[in-house]
């Protein structure tokens, strides 16, 4: 009985073609950050972005702790709102799916590869009751409706996007936050850094000091860069650039540890950066000549030019005849390359009934989403070349041996006579 039910289930859920639906949605600006100033009013223009080649119906909602102080204008559909973004979004979808709203009511139309503006207005309430830090409010856009093909077991995806509207409640006293950028550079050029200090406190800071410790790929501190002290006023952002000459260093992944010191407080941020590019070179491709119906062993010697271990390196070798037609392909096993080390990857090709002659090898090494390529050759021969014994040499050796034996024999005989 159970077997029968399985069969029935399988029979009903027959093949369904894949849908080529695309769900896409965007918002600009994606994030705005303002200080939480009581009674301050903002009117912000947002763009709903539709990169799809077809027009799109888009549901609009806003949410967050300040949702009661917000409103959206400039649209022709219902705008959903509430404190929890997830609940508001889910409620919107449910009302559409349940048929409580028409699509025209639930979403505004955005033309193909176009944008539609909406305006969000907010008047900030009293700060009391809000903890220091970020008050996260959002305006959201979700593509409607979800159209799924009939039958089958289908999981359908809908794209939604939320623009963040953040208000910062200041921390009492002196409070700075630190962010940083670290841009790598080719070997010999300057790596560039930037420390970004933000005053999220209720007092200005007159003497903020940042230093940057730079660590090599093996974790050894190489140098420390001291940046000039800065004053950071209320709600202000201060950016301090720095650079470091990479001449004489090794290729690899480095770490920059930024340390901010102010008013007896310390904050640190770590960023990784690279000197040079992650690179593997192919030293050579070698393959001995092989017979028909045998296996050619192809050796691909690779060398890491990178200061960290490179995992899961492998190669694919294509074998091509004189006409340029591919007659075989082989993939090597995975290896991990230690920093700056050499390894030999092995690929094998069954020659089968391949014609005699030279074949071109085209090897591509894959690592960390990158590739390196090189070419080589392999020959299919009638006889594997080895040590060639020529008849002349055999005869010559035989004559020399015979003469030596004769000389030894006569010498011994003469000695016997004398005695």
């Amino acid at each position: 009985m159970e077997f029968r039910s399985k069969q029935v289930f399988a029979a009903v859920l027959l093949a369904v073609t894949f849908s080529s639906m695309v769900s896409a949605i965007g918002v600009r600006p994606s994030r705005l950050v303002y200080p939480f100033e009581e009674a301050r009013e903002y009117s912000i223009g947002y763009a709903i972005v539709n990169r799809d080649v077809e027009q799109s119906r888009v549901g609009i909602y806003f949410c967050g702790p300040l949702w009661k102080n917000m409103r959206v204008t400039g649209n022709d559909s219902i705008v959903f709102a509430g404190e929890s973004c997830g609940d508001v979004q889910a409620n919107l979808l449910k009302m559409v799916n349940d048929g409580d709203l028409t699509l025209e009511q639930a979403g505004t139309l955005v033309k193909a590869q176009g944008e539609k503006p909406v305006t969000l207005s907010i008047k900030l309430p009293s700060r009391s009751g809000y903890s220091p830090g970020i008050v996260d409010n959002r305006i959201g856009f979700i593509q409607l409706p979800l159209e799924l093909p009939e039958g089958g077991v289908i999981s359908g995806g809908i794209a939604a996007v939320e623009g963040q509207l953040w208000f910062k409640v200041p921390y009492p006293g002196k409070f700075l936050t630190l962010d940083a950028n670290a841009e790598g550079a080719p070997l010999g050029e300057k790596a560039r850094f930037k420390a970004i200090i933000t005053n999220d406190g209720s007092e200005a800071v007159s003497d903020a000091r940042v230093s940057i410790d730079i660590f090599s790929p093996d974790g050894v501190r190489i140098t420390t860069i001291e940046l000039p002290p800065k004053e950071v006023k209320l709600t202000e952002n201060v950016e301090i650039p720095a650079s470091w000459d990479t001449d004489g260093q090794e290729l690899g992944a480095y770490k920059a540890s930024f340390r901010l010191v102010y008013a007896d407080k310390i904050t640190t941020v770590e960023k990784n950066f690279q000197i040079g590019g992650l690179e593997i070179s192919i030293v050579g491709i070698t393959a001995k000549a092989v017979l028909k119906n045998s296996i050619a062993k192809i050796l691909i010697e690779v060398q890491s030019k990178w200061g960290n271990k490179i995992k899961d390196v492998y190669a694919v070798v294509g074998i091509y005849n004189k006409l340029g037609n591919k007659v075989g392909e082989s993939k090597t096993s995975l290896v991990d390359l230690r920093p700056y080390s050499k390894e030999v990857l092995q690929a094998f090709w069954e020659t089968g009934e391949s014609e005699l002659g030279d074949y071109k090898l085209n090897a591509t090494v894959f690592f960390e989403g990158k590739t390196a390529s090189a070419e080589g050759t392999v020959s299919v021969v009638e006889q594997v070349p080895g040590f060639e014994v020529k008849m002349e040499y055999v005869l010559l050796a035989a004559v020399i041996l015979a003469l030596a034996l004769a000389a030894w024999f006569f010498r011994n005989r003469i000695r016997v006579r004398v005695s």
Partner: protein
Amino acid sequence: MEIQSNKMLVSALLAAFLLVAAGFWILQGKLESTGLTSSPTGTVSASVYSTADIALKISAVTFSNVSIDFTYRTDGNTAVNHSGAEAFLLRNDGSVTANVTLYAGDSLWVTQTGNSSYYRFNVTNATGNTTAKNCSGSSPDHNVWYNVPVGAGNVATKAVCIMDYTDNNDYANISIEITVPSGESSGGKSSEVVFTATQS
């Protein structure tokens, strides 16, 4: 001698003046004839805002011909059944890195509602180093199967973390695994999964 010198000086000055005037006249004519005219300068200023933008290039994962008690995946793993379904393919079309959360608005199965191992997902890079393999918060590791959060009351799971937006590094696969529960009725089944992106 002095008068002569003065005359010569005046003549030379006049000649020089005429030469300059003639040269200026000729040059001006040539400049005008080639269309090179002076222009007032000005400053154009513009603020470029960042955009959060995602696209589900494959937005329907369709398992066909499935049987009760069997498990199917979209990731092509030969250890389980494949059933021909493709994984969700997500692309970051924005100008900033993005965090993407997901949840299913409704259950896929009648007999297994809510979060369960009968409906799972996993995230992997589809190109280059698309996303951070894990990050703080409710972020799953790459290539590990997790239950799909089901229902509006569920907190969306941060599925894709610090998703890159640069070309060739902006695709992620969200594979789906289903196990058909015992006692599930025959017929079509569907579930809507909402992917929500924000700037990371």
